[in-house]
């Protein structure tokens, strides 16, 4: 009987390549698509790369929660795994809370730029823009384009 497979999603805007023991030359998981992997393959990807730890690739629902627990990651508070709605909630807090959140996690660049894009559409207070500007000194939060 073949081993049960789970869905490994690439929700990002860019392609992600993965190498597994039986695919040593790798396969490409295109942006916005998924691939099916076994538990062994998942373990191998986790052992050889940071793609799952950094939230580049994610599992579905409960499986992702189990994986995050195993890695010691709090999904609700880790920006690398948050949905747009959760990020907007964090951006709605006050400037001190925002600073604490941005300083507390090892936030990956692709998440920072997503946070910036979302912040730009939210008409935030200047104090919060200043906190964000410290993290992204060259991002233009004020222009319309």
């Amino acid at each position, binding site marked *: 009987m073949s081993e049960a497979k789970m869905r490994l999603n690439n929700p990002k805007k860019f392609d992600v390549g993965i*190498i597994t023991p039986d695919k040593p030359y790798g396969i490409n998981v*295109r942006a916005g698509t998924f691939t099916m992997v076994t538990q062994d393959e998942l373990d191998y990807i986790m052992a050889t790369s940071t*793609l799952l730890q950094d939230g580049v690739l994610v599992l579905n629902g409960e499986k992702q929660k189990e994986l995050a627990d195993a890695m010691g990651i709090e999904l609700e508070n880790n920006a690398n795994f948050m949905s747009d709605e959760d990020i907007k909630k964090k951006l709605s807090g006050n400037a001190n809370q925002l600073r604490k959140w941005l300083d507390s996690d090892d936030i990956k660049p692709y998440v920072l730029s997503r946070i910036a894009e979302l912040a730009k559409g939210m008409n935030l207070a200047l104090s919060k823009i200043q906190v964000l500007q410290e993290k992204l000194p060259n991002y233009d939060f004020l222009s319309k384009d």
Partner: protein
Amino acid sequence: MAIEIRKDSQIVDVVLAEARHERLDSEVRENANQLIRDLASDPNPNNKYQIAQLVKFAVNDIIKRDTNYLDVLADVKRVGFGDKAEFDVKLPGVKAFIQAKGATTPRTKNSRKTLSLETLSVSARPVINIVELQNGLANAADLINDASYQMECAMYAFIENVLVNAADDWGTPYYGTGSGLVKSTLDPMIMHWIRAAGGAVIFGDIGENTKLAQLTGFVANSTAGTQQFAGNIINEQNQNAVIGTYLSAKVVNLLNPLKEDGTDAFVFDAKKLFIVPTNIDAGMRPLKVVFEGDVFSTEATNIDDLSWEIRLDQYFNAAIAKGIRPYLGMYADSSV
């Protein structure tokens, strides 16, 4: 007789060579150190200014020489103090329309925007005991080496951060990642520029470039699964540690200096590959870097502890302006 140190003075080259740990004739080295000791032993304002000038010229030269990172990846402008650099960014412009004969064609115009960057300062403030400098216990070359490396590391970390923070937002085919170099992810990124610009050059740290050879193999029989490599690829890899060409793209090593902080870390992230389209003007590159003036120095002596300090500053800034598209690709190797 008052000594005046200029940019092209021989002592600048000697101290520079000493700071870079280059081999030097001992007499030449001693003469240079003696001159610095002579200047320090009579610490009048002019002499201290001359030593600060010497440090400034040497630091300036070191900072400009150590890597080709900016030359190959950025659109760099150097302007005078007080001047502003303007970068021209092309935006989506003229469009064509299919419509009924005689209908009015909507007007579109060629569109550009200019990006002007305010500069920041990368600054170091090395301090030295004036008595130690007078009697030769402290070495000006060490001071120059430390100051320039620290300024350089801070500046390049900033510039790299600007690029890396923006690149993943460009999406496919300008950005890709993988648990190692994955051919089916990397090849379309290179192929994109072969189609769009006629060719590409791959720039990367030698550690990453050396992995490209593994991607050149092919499996003759899918059931056998043994990867085959061309003989010349194996020889080239053995001789040069990297192959000269991958998928028609020239493979070039980025000069990645070692950090002088006691670790074996490098200045730039060694796990990135940059795919730069050929035949594209440097002005189209998305990474814009401006340097305002050269490194400049100010110095002061502290009467309390006889310390003499030089403050070195370089004004610069970096930003991303991608315009129609970023004329650069970046592959991040996420393997551990």
